Structures are given as C-alpha cells and as structure tokens.
C-alpha cells in the first residue's frame, strides 16, 4: 500500500499541517519505509482475535454527569494567544 505525494498532501490536510513541498516529499518517502516495515503484520492471521483497546482490564469508568468548575480559570485564559474577556479570539469565521 505505497503512498504517493498526493496521498501525503491529503493526509497533511486531514492533519491540519501546512507542509512544504520538500516536507511532503520527505514524509512520503519515510512513511513508505515505515509502512513497508508494517506490512509484515499482514502475514499474521488475526481473524479470530479481538483487538486490545485497554491493556489492563478496567471496565468502563462511570461518574455522575455533573459539571465542575476548573478552579483556575484565570490560569487558562492567561495562555490564550488572543483573549477577549473570557473568549479566545480567532480570525473571522463567517
């Protein structure tokens, strides 16, 4: 399943990464090397194998659906690149 530079450009778009042509070329080559290596997995029969999503069985953790205020709202807002009141400012959307 080799990928070409157009595939890489599509993936970069999905990943929200504005990559240069040079980066796209490099990553296309390197991802192909890694995916080549990963092809060995195809030889393993996993038809009757369940996937492991939790390495240590814990069951589903449930809690009451209750909102709790974060104690340091000012500390969160301080990190905003651009803040107005309690809102983060972004370029115009509409």
């Amino acid at each position, binding site marked *: 399943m080799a990928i070409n530079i157009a595939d890489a450009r599509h993936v970069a778009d999905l990943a*929200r990464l504005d990559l240069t042509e040079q980066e796209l070329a490099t*990553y296309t080559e390197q991802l192909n090397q890694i995916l080549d290596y990963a092809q060995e*997995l*195809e030889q393993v029969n996993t038809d009757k194998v369940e996937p492991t999503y939790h390495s240590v069985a814990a069951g589903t*953790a449930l*809690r009451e659906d209750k909102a709790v205020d974060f104690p340091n709202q000012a500390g969160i807002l*301080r990190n905003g690149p651009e803040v107005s009141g309690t809102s983060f400012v972004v370029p115009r959307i509409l």
Partner: protein
Amino acid sequence: MQHLTLKELRDKLQKGETTAVEAVQKVFAQIRKHEPVIKAYLQTFEQAALGQAQKADELLKKSGTEARPAPLLGVPLAVKDNLNLLNTETTCASKILRGYVSPYTATAVQKLIEAGAIIIGKTNLDEFAMGSSTENSAIQQTSNPWDTGRVPGGSSGGAAAAVAADECFGGLGSDTGGSIRQPAAFCGIVGLKPTYGLVSRYGLVAFASSLDQIGPLAKTVEDAAIILNVIAGYDAADSTSHARPPQDYTALLGQDIKGKKIALIKELLGDGIADTVRQAVETAADNLRTQGAVIETVSLPTFQHALAAYYLVATSEASANLARFDGVRFGYRQQSAKNVLELFKQSRAAGFGAEVKRRIMLGTYALSAGYYDAYYLKAQKIRTLIKQDYCRAFAQYDALISPTAPTAAFKFGEKVGSPLSMYLSDIATIPVNLAGLPGISVPCGLADGLPVGLQLVAAEFEEQKLLQIAAAVERGSKFARIRL
C-alpha cells in the same frame, strides 16, 4: 552530599545529620558545575527550592520530637517537562508550547510535593516525548554523563542525565514505548515503568493514551520503590487509574530470590542485539542463578511484530491527542493566518518539529478512511497476541529478562537520518507498553565502558516482586554509578 542516594539523604535528613537547605545548595552547586555540558534541565527553580527547603528543615526539626516526617521531606527531585506544575512553564521541549504556563499540577507531581519533596527543575525530552535520544528536543541537546559525545537516550533523557550526574536525587519521567527505561539504561541508573493505571496520568501531556505511564528514574532500585510508594494510587481525575489497596514497594527488597523462576526472552537476545550487551545481560542472569533463582529461556514469537504494531497504535493515538495544539487556546499562533483553517495549519506547521509531524502524518494516515482496519485495528489485534504471549509466560515465570536496549548509548547524529533505525532502539521496551505491564531497567554492567541496562518485566501489578528481583540484579552486578 549530592552523590548520596535518595534513601541515604532521607536518613541523614531525618537524623538531623544534614539539612534540606544544604541538600538543595549542594545540588545546585553540582548543576552549576555540570549543566553547561550536560544540559539536562530546561529550567530550574533555585530560589523557590531554597524557600521550600527552609520550611522542610523546620518540619524536620519538629518531627524529631513528634510524628514521623513525610516520606520525601526535604528531598530535591526533578520532573520531566511534559508534567504540569502550577505556575511554571511546561514546554514538552516544543516550540508550540513555549511560554505555556501550567494552570494546575499533575497528580503524580502533587503527590511528590505533598510527600515533602522539593521540585528543583524540569528536564529536557524529545519533543512531546517522541524519540529515543532526546535529540528531538526543539530547545537543547542533552549529553550523556558517561560520554558527552553520546545521547542520554530518550525520551526522558534530561531526567536520566540529571539523576546520573547527581543533579537531583531522583525524578519522574513518562514511558510510552521505553522512554523511562531506555534512557535509564543509557545513563546507568534505574528506571521503572509501572503497570498501566497504577499511577495517575492526570497532568501528563498525552502522547499515546493507551500506552503512556508515569514512573520514577532513580539512583537505586530502593529509591525507585520509595518514589513509587508516593506516586501510586487511584485518582478520580484519571479514569484509567486503578483503585487498589496500597502496597509498600520497598517491603521485599531485602528478601532473597531463591526458587524464583525467571526466563530470558529468546527473541530479544538474537540478531540486532550487540554482543557486549548480550554478554552483560547473560552474566547478570548467571548471577541471579547463583542467588538461587531458576533461570530458563522462553520464546515469545509475537514479539517480532511488536514494533510495527506499536508505531501504528502510538502514532494513531498521538495524531488525535495532538489535534488540540491549534493556536486557538494556548501555544504558538501564526499571526499572519487569514482564516481559521490557515490558523490551524500554519500554527501547527510552524510549531511542531520534524519527528512530531512525521508521527502525526503516520497516525492520521493509519486512522483515515479505508485504512483503519488494515493498520490501527490490525495493530490492536497484534497487541492481543502479544498480551497472550506474556500471559503464557507469566503462568510459568515470575519475571522475564532481556536487555533494555539493543546497544549501549549511541553517538549524536548516528540515527537521526533514519527514523526506522531510531525506532528499532525501542524493540525490547515497547512490547511491555503494548501489554500494560510493569518493567524496570537496572544497570547490570558495562559494554566498552558504557552502562548496560537489564530489563525485568512482571505480570500486571506485580511491582513488589519486580522490585525484589531488580534489587537482586543490583546486588549481583555491583554496578558503580558514574561520579561527576
């Protein structure tokens, strides 16, 4: 004094033979002397540390007559810079988080503080913990105290180098595929990755959530156990943490290992493992046999697929976790962006380094429409097979042995050009994360003058037994830490 172990320092503090202020001063003298070359720390907090040390000394004086002091009272420790500490910068060694000031403290760090520890600084890492040499730090290059032309390992390379260079008495790292154990091996110290869920991950900047775990880097096995005693435990803020009765992880350290059944992993002693590393590990295994353990060899055939499965699972989860860095609420923002999509794409492109982008690309591809079953799902099924291999082994054995890494510390630049060869340096450590098991690296000897780490792995939540056997490895090897 900076050369003391955590345990030795604690005993001296509690007996009144030294003070926390003196300990902090000695550690900072060591930092001033060696940091220009080692560069383990991204930031240090000398004034705050001295203030905390004075308070600790007052408490230590009182405790002489009253109750027993907190277990780490007055002990200077370091934490990896992907752990949040209130009102300090947490960068993950990434340009995208430069200037980010933590609005809260990670649970594991908070537990250290509550136990009386003094957090003296935050240590370097591969950007977002992605790497095996700390060369992927966007901020600085950390050197190995044993040979400053070589890497300290990674991704917790700063913490490992700081502990090895006696620039602190222990530290916390994070381990997703070997990031505590491999740098511990390269720097000749002890590194423990606990069972997934034993230590809360709340406040650890997430890399791959099903694999990440916080653990200690320490001068000795006993020091690692003392730190684990403090950081282990359930936390409602981490839904994957486990509620279990507390254990004293130091309890079995002095016990002999007569009759313990331990197996060398065949797949991790063959091709790709340096002869000198294999010899050091086999010598250490013989030593365990001399101490009364039964040593055999076991085959875990699915391990040959672990690396491929790991890089699909880890990068897939990373691509999702790192979606939050978009220049909106925190971190770097590209000011020239004309719309929101450009803001996301340009901020991320300018803020992330090459390895982080590579892994986001791989993970995004593995999760994208049409490839999910072939890559992510397939990798998660391989993970089940690896768990089953371990399960069969632990029905027979108390612990498994392998080298921690295929070679001793390599030179700067040696593997930078080839991502795959860098990934291969984690071949022995990643199966442990895929299965969620506890693993520890203990120094067991030298290869051409560089430390070799022996990795022990036990069944889930068997840290007591793991540490007991690790202490026996330590006693047998008589490894001498470097003294700078």
